[in-house]
């Protein structure tokens, strides 16, 4: 069957079998491998993408069911080479270690902040409660989402120069000027993604 959807702002049309899951359509047909594929049972949450702005587990949605809808994957978070504040937050607060859960975590965080710009710890933890981080990085993930909430426009010149109180912690020492930080992140994030086929196939 033929399906058409908007992925990261671009219309895509493909012929697929009805049984193809959205996660495999995104990874194998569209070659957007930032969306990770994990447990296959809608438990782990690494395959989370946004469907019409809402987080969904793409291992449990048929590509056919996404026909006519708007999908955002982790590749769609950055705009024009500038990282989303959520991505910057994960860098600033060390929200990832192995990076496997990170795309799903960041998309859930984006969706949360879109409806609740200033969530508290409980609200953040509840929002990500359907996602598993096995590096036990929840504390830093929560801090990363707070960073994004505190910096809705992302890293500013003042942050980079150390003028913002939020930048006075240890992590401030690692930041450079905004353009360079974004460029560095754009390189660093794909490199940190593991390819699940190698370990689960």
């Amino acid at each position, binding site marked *: *069957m033929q399906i058409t959807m908007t992925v990261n702002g671009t219309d895509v049309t493909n012929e697929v*079998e*009805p*049984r*193809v*899951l959205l996660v*495999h359509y995104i990874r194998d047909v569209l070659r957007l491998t930032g969306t990770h594929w994990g447990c*296959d*049972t*809608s*438990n782990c*949450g690494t395959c*989370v993408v946004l469907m019409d702005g*809402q*987080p*969904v*587990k793409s291992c*449990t*949605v*048929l590509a*056919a*069911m996404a*026909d006519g809808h708007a999908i955002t994957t982790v590749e769609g978070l950055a705009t024009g080479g500038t990282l989303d504040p959520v991505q910057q937050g994960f860098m600033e607060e060390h929200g990832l270690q192995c990076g496997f859960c990170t795309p799903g975590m960041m998309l*859930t965080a984006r969706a949360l902040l879109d409806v609740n710009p200033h969530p508290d710890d409980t609200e953040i933890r*509840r*929002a990500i*409660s*359907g*996602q598993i981080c096995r590096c036990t990085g929840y504390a830093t993930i929560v801090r990363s989402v707070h960073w994004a909430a505190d910096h809705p426009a992302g890293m500013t010149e003042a942050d980079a120069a150390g003028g913002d109180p939020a930048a006075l912690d240890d992590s401030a020492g690692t930041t450079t000027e905004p353009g360079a930080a974004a460029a560095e992140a754009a390189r660093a994030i794909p490199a940190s993604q593991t390819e699940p086929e190698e370990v*689960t*196939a």
Partner: protein
Amino acid sequence: MQIPAPFEYARADTVDDAIALLSRYGPEARIIAGGHSLLPMMKLRLARPEWLIDINDLFELDFVLRDGDRLRIGALTRHTTLLESAEIAALFPIVGDAERVIADPIVRNRGTIGGSLCQADPAEDLATVCDVLGAEAIVRGPLGERMLTMTEFHRGAYETAVAADELLCEVRIPIRPRSGSAYEKVERRVGDWAVAAAGAALSFAEDGTIAEASVGLTAVGLDGTVGAVTELLRGERPGEQLFIEAGRLAALAADPVADQRGPVDYKRHLADELTRRVLRRATDRVAEFAGATGHPTTPQEG
């Protein structure tokens, strides 16, 4: 990699269209809404439908509507909507209690009340909620609409009275004056099925005695509500001694099986303890019940 076996896919535009598709493709066709129960079963070949009929475009089935002395909930209403509805929270706090522990927030963005009821998993929380609230299911087929009580609707594990060419369209819950309700579940971790859970709904007469009472149990081998508890509570004044006896009767009515979630005596203990807790909480909530004030009919979150 877990992939369902091949099937054909059709998307329904209207309820009539969905029923026509069900009639055309027969018993090998299945309705898919949220898909978070059906797709995992299809991946494991526990379900192998030849046709999937996607009803996610049937916005006419996505509503929460107060209609006189009942609340009408469309079958395609998502768990997230049920949890966020202020009207449901005010009228039936048991729904929020249960929804907060159904799967996780992301799964709740997709899953629907109709899907939960039609899946008829013995550990399904909303089945118990609808049982104790005395809900009715509105089912539509080629010959028209029929109304089923929850007792009629449930036919045991993974089986309902909805025929192969019928679609569950709506759930109607009666609004009783001076009522309160609660649900509590013990689960091993976020998103897991219940080890055991209990739900209670009470309504009081003007003199402060219990007019109607029902207690239901989840995942411990009891269909419907505990008749002995209803008989015990009706006409009585709420109190700890009464609720202790209700807990004992609920544990007796339970018929759990030992599995990886726990042994029989533990689950029976939970049936007892959770019954007492939900009866206490349902009683406490009567004071804050908003149903008697008579809001005008207002569509919400449609």
